[in-house]
């Protein structure tokens, strides 16, 4: 069974970077897939990876992480202006961050505005279906 936890922006906005990262890691380490409104700063993403590495053990194999709606920094002027405006109004609230434990999420396939989340179970089923067909 998959457990999804939604974290709205207001739950994170008053936390400092350290608190945000530990909140996210705590949820992920308890086998939840976190959907966070907004996104982390790039320095926080790097810190999240660093912290994750410190926690790696035979039981905790790491995380899968993905962000939708990354602003395109080379977009056309109008698009760029729109993106800057959205960021000014919403700040880090813009976008959606998905973080889950690597033992549950096998892979997150990411397009600029689409995400495919492949879980271990789904992959196993797909593999076994494939095997049946080949027989």
């Amino acid at each position, binding site marked *: 069974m998959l457990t999804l936890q939604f974290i709205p922006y207001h739950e994170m906005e008053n936390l400092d970077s350290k608190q945000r990262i530990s909140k996210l890691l705590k949820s992920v380490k308890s086998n939840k897939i976190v959907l966070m409104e907004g996104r982390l*700063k*790039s*320095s926080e*993403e*790097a*810190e999240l*990876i*660093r912290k*994750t*590495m*410190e926690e*790696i053990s*035979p039981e905790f*194999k*790491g*995380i*899968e*992480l*993905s*962000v939708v709606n*990354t602003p*395109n*920094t*080379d977009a056309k002027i109008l698009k760029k202006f729109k993106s800057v405006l959205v960021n000014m109004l919403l700040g880090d609230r813009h976008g959606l961050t998905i973080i889950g434990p*690597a033992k549950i999420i096998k892979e*997150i*396939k*990411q*397009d*600029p505005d689409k995400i495919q989340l492949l879980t271990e179970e789904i992959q196993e089923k797909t593999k076994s279906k494939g095997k049946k067909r080949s027989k």
Partner: protein
Amino acid sequence: MLKGIKAVFGKLLKRMFKKKKQVKLGLYGPPNGGKTTLANKICQDWLGEDMGSVSNIAHETREVSIKESITIKSGNKELSFNLVDTPGIATKIDYEDFLKSGMKAKEAKQRAKEATKGVIDSIKWLDDMDTVIVVLDATIDPYTQVNITIIGNLQARKIPVLIVGNKIDKKKANLKKLEAAFPQYKVIGISAKFGKNTDEFYKELFNLVD
């Protein structure tokens, strides 16, 4: 006369200062993109020696390694730098993946432990870089959060970046996808293993550092 002496001293000091400042050129990217293969190619081309060992198993490079004072030439221009090869950055490390590649449990666990330390070191070293080459496997989908995080951090630190799409000798290589994923950066396709397009790569390196 005093002015003349001052000017000469000024130039001398400037030269001394210039010589002391070595650009730190970092190789960053996810595991198995070919960072060490490229580091070896650069070192072979300009020093006649290798920098590190390479393997098909991920996380072969688990420590940051530095090759000092590499000077490359193009026409009349010269470029000197310290080359920093970093372990691949990943968000997950599973020792069982190493078991699948034929390692024994103890060795696999040790490799996983070293690999996690390697990722931590790579992230720490980001602050020390002057210029970075992000080495990506051109046969793999570039839209991964690790790639975006690496490039986002370099962008935030205002570090000049060149993206290298490695393994263009393979049929699946898709440079256009890389260019579409990171349109704000110059992307150059090479095969570090076979030395394909490395002249263009060196030219771009001059453009990046100058």
